[in-house]
Structure formats: C-alpha cells, structure tokens
C-alpha cells in the first residue's frame, strides 16, 4: 500500500436541489478506509474553517468520496466556488465511529432535508446486513428532495413525506414512523436531519419503545478528540461527538443543549459571510 501526500481534487460537482450540491472528491485512502456513518473534516482553502461533512458515498476503485453539502454559511459558500479540477486545501478522515450494523429486522432510515445524504450509506450497510430497510425522505417541499434514486437502490422501499404535501404524503417524519409502525414492528430507527426533527422523532420512538439512533452535528474543530468543542450531553454525561459518535441513542441526547451550542457563533458567522462577499466584489 502506498501512503503519499494526497491532493483533494474535485472530480464532479452537481446541484441536487437549491443550495444543495454533490461533490465527488479524490481521496483514495479515505475512500478505502471509510465505513457507513463516518465523516470527514474539510478545510476548503487557506483561512477557512475546518468543517465536518458526512461521507455520503465512496468508491474505492476510483478513489473518491461523495459529499452532499447544503450551503449555509461562509465555508460551504466557499466550497461552492471550487470548480471541477480544483482542489480542497485539506480533507481528513474517515472520522467518527462507524454505525453499528447488524441484522435486526425492519430498519427505518429517516433522512430529513440535508440528512438524506448521511442516512444513505447507513441504509446501504443495513440492507447489506440482511435487514428490511425502509427509507423515509422528509423535506419541507418537493424542491428540497434529492437522492431519490440512490435511496431506492439502497432500500427495500422508499416513502416520501413533505411538510406541504407537494410530494408524497403530507406530514412530518414522525407521521411517517407512525404509519410504518402501524403496519408492523420496527426493529430500529435511524434518524438524521435538523435537530428539531431528530428531537421529535426520538420523543415519539421513546413512547413507542423503538430503539433509535441519531447522528449529531455540533460545531467541531479538529474532529479527532483533541478539543472537546463538539461535546454534548448523552445520558447526562459529556461525550465528544467526533470520537464517541456521531451516532448516539436518541433517547439519551440533550437536543436542546446541542441547539444552543450550535448557535454560539451566529455573529461571527455573519462576519465571515460579509468578508466573503467583500472578496467577491
């Protein structure tokens, strides 16, 4: 095996929905080593932040990893400016503990909004382990949905739910779970998406007694356990999401604390955006 300096060339770039872009990046060692549920840390260019992004797919043959990124601030906006053939300055991974994959029965994989991307590799792995996998794609409206084909391939069945009913059934991820539960027992739920969605799904599944894994997205710096910036309370204990997670038992997570920690840097994030806009002009 060769272990050389890597250059993280952008091989493919595709818009999946407004402000949601798929990036296929050259990173052969990461592509080879990664397992479902793991993520990378990307630093787009000199001066930009180190941001965590889930590995949505990987191809060890071409040595590439796929990231699906929602543009929400300066780093993700900088990312959108990198052309195919250009490079990300840095990419570290695979990070985090892989998803615990086992044969359990019916597994429901819920992807809410941008969370569809990280749930995809988990659905693949759960299916490969012999589970019956039901994918739930949930979004505010039809324009925000993506990866429909990919999820169909990864799951036994895919159901679409939108808040406004513009696609699939009208309702929330929790409604989807109730519907599936009414049809037969669910062995486990995996829910990835915005914090409120994960919070309410966990609340429901606790009532229904269904084990639930969620994937948390706190602010990170190193991604290797060296700073503690990513800590969240799980079962009343502080955990480092980058090494102890990112997946945790949804019934134990303090979601409100996570939301508050995510909002610490609102002002600074605005400043970073303004700096970017100045550069562009």
């Amino acid at each position, binding site marked *: 095996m060769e272990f050389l300096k890597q250059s993280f060339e952008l091989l493919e770039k595709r818009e999946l929905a407004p402000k949601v872009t798929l990036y296929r990046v050259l990173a052969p060692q990461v592509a080879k080593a990664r397992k479902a549920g793991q993520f990378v840390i990307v630093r787009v260019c000199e001066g930009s932040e180190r941001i965590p992004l889930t590995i949505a797919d990987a191809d060890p043959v071409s040595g590439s990893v796929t990231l699906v990124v929602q543009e929400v601030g300066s780093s993700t906006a900088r990312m959108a400016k990198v052309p195919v053939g250009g490079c990300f300055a840095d990419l570290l991974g695979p990070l985090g503990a892989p998803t615990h994959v086992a044969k359990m029965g019916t597994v429901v994989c819920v992807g809410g909004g941008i969370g569809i991307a990280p749930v995809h590799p988990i659905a693949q792995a759960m299916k490969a382990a012999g589970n019956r996998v039901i994918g739930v794609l949930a979004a505010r409206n039809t324009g925000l949905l993506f990866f429909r084909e990919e999820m169909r391939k990864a799951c036994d069945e895919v159901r679409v739910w939108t808040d406004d009913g513009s696609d699939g059934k009208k309702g929330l991820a929790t409604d989807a779970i109730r519907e599936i539960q009414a049809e037969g027992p669910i062995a486990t739920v995996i829910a990835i998406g915005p914090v409120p969605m994960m919070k309410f799904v966990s609340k429901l599944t606790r009532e229904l007694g269904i084990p639930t894994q969620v994937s948390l997205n706190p602010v990170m710096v190193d991604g290797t356990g060296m*700073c*503690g910036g990513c800590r969240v309370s799980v079962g009343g204990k502080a955990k480092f999401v980058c090494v102890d997670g990112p997946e945790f038992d949804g019934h134990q997570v303090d979601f409100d604390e996570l939301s508050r*920690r995510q909002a610490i840097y609102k002002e600074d994030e605005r400043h970073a955006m303004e700096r970017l806009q100045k550069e562009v002009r």
Partner: protein
Amino acid sequence: MAPTIAPVPKDLKARFKTLRQDMPNQDPIARGKNFQEVALGFDAEAAKLEAYRCIYCKEPDCVNGCPVGIDIPGFLHEVEKGDFSSALGILKSTNLLPAVCGRVCPQEEQCESLCKTGKSKGNKPVAIGRVERFLADWERAGGVAKPQEVAPATGKKVAVVGSGPAGLACAADLARAGHDVVIFEAFHKPGGVLVYGIPEFRLPKKIVADEIAALEKMGVEIVCNFAVGLTATLEQLQEAFDAIFVATGAGLPYFMDLPGENLGGIYSANEYLTRVNLMGAFDPDHNDTPVVRGKNVVVVGGGNVAMDAARTALRLGAEKVRLVYRRSHDEMPARGEEIEHAEEEGIDFTLLTTPVRYLGDDKGRVVGVECRRMELGEPGPDGRRKPVEVAGSEHQYPADVVVVAIGNGPNPLVPRTTPQLETKKGKIVAKDDSGRTSMKGVFAGGDIVLGAATVILAMGAGRKAAASMNEYLATGAW
C-alpha cells in the same frame, strides 16, 4: 556527549562580579494588545558577557540538569570567544531545536537550577537558555546555517506518526542516517503543540515553519491530513514501513465535570488555543474560525497552558482576566518567567480557589462562575500540600468566557485502534530509553509515553528512539 573541559579560568572574581544580563521585553501594556513576541532576546555583546559568567566547572552540574545533556560549558566557551559558529555546532549536535528550547524550556528548573555560578553567594545562574536562543536566532538571521549532511540512502522506509517536537527530532536524525522518512500528521499543519498550543507571543510560528522547511529540504516527506488509526491503521503502516515512531502527544483535554460545563463560551485550553493559534481566530479579517471574545475571562489552572490561555484572552481584548487556581502561588506548575509575565500584564491571580459550577443565561451562554475557597491541608503522596475546600465559602465571579486548563491526557487515537499495543493508563508503554513498544518495529516517545511533559524531553525521546531505530534497521534485532 561528554562535556568539553575548558581550562579553569583565572579571573573567577571578575566572572562572578559580572551581572546576569537582562533580556529586554516588550512593554507590558503595549504587548497586552498584540501577539508579537514578548521577550526580545540578547544581542551579541550581551550573549558574550553572559557566557563570560560561566566558570567552566570541572564537573558541570548544569549538564546533569539538562534532560538531553547538552555540552553547556563547551558552547558557552565558544560564545565567550565570539565564535558563534562553533558554539552552534556544539549546541546543535545535541539540541535540534535550539530556537524553540531556548524560548520554552523550563530552564530555571533544569540546567540553570544546578548552575554553580548560581550557587555562589548572591549570584544568579548563567542564563543558559537565553544564550541558546541567541545562537539559534543568530543562525536564523543569516549567520552560518551549515546544511545538514545526509548519509547515503539505506533504502529503508520509516514512518513517524505525529509532528510535534518528538516526531520532528526523530525524523531529522533518521533522515540524516539516510533512511526514507515520512511524517504523518492529523492536523493540516505540522508542528504539534508548537503550532496549535504555544502562542505566537512566546514562540513565533515562523521559527517552527523554518525548522519544518529544513526537514523537508533533507528529504523528509510530511503528509498532513492523515490520522493514523483512522486514515490507515498502525498495522497497515507496518506493512509499508520498516520501522515506525509514534509521537502522538498528550492532546486529550480534561474537564472537571461540573454543572454547567457545556455552556457556550466554556472551552478546553486546547480548543481555545487551537482556534486562536492554528486557526487564526485572532485575525477575523483573514480567518473564518471564530472564538468568543470575552470581557470577563476566567481561566482555571496554574500551569504553562493556563498562563498561555490567560495571556491570549488579554490579547483578544478582555477587560479582566482572572486565573483561578486551587493551590497557592508557590505550587503553580507554570514556569517562573511565564507567571511573572502574566502578572506584569495584569492577569488577576485568584489563588486557593476552585470552580464548583457555571452559571448561564437563557441562551445557554456562560455568565458567571461559582467558586469555593481552598485551604492547604496535609502534604499528599507527591509532597505537595493537598488543597481542601472551605465549606460555605461560595462566591461568584462574572465570566463570559471560561477556559479550563487543568491538564491533558495521552491522545487515545492510536492506542484505541491498535489493540495489540501495550498501554498503561492510556500511555503507550516504551520499554526503556530506546522507545521500543510491545510491537516489533514500533517505537514511541514524547508526551504519548511520558504524559504531558516538556518540549526538550519530547525532543530527547525522539532522538533516542532514532538511535535505537537505526540500530534495529541495521541489525533487525528486537
């Protein structure tokens, strides 16, 4: 190296009478607002005068005080004569990073604590560290920088995991011996604590960058963005390399598990310093990574790391920086010079005090710290008097930023992903000075073996491991 014995000088009196040279510092008020280096260094005259204070002891105790046994009287003798180039040769034959060690070594506890000049009545020890720093800076300023000689290629491939002082020193010696060396570093920039931990105002990053550039010139390849244990396992590296040195440091931050510790604005020292030093949060016009800039900053701890955090907070614009430490002034583990500098800059030392919980607002941001006073009780097993809490002494300080600097544990990444590697309390077990671990061909050294220690010990461990790796690569004997 055996110390050179210079002739015992005849002018002992004159030497003893020469005063320890002062090293100029930036003005305390001005420097509290900038990140430039605080200590400005000796000039050639001061360095020569300082060297003249050495009496060339037949049995130089100073050398025993230096963890790597530098030939101190040997290089001082050359400095006294004004032959800086020869002095550097002697210094660098043992200390690969004199510009770094001359700045950050706890000299007053090591070489200088045993200096005989310092033991003579009313006198202070020779400022060995400052002379080292002078020599290194003189070389950097265009003195003589002799290119490093590299032995003919051996065809052996060696991996070094971690690019802190231990890894850098080991890589340099291995490259000099003609091996093919690759350093793997998890961060996007090499240097370890020297770049992400120790602030610019104590150790300019240009110095570290130059040392790394010199290594690359010797043919060492540095692969950043590579976390051994995750990007590839140690076992996988074993297949590709003839020997491996693990120097992954003590990067695991400890917290105290107090109520409210997860409030916004409460940082580990690692996170706080990494955001500022490595990610450049002190300069938001060029860097996106943010850090909360507090008006009232409380730093918990009394070591070098706590001093660095407190002085960093001041430079980020804090109006009041309070250092809360549970023992008294004398027990503070930080270097004397750092404590002095912090005091001069106006850091408030709140001693014999410990935090018990943190108070937050409705947005989940810290607004205050509740503390309890401490008393020193009976001496504990380490001989230090144990602090005990005084019941009913609760009181509060306002705080919009808190930095927890109570220590770091060994980095768990490699041990956790390498089950066959023997560890003790999280530290990798190295058999002896050679750095041999329980895995054939795998050596370890620096903070990952010693626990959080010092730059010079890490560098020394890297060099000793390199020597035993050379032997192993030549003979194959384990």
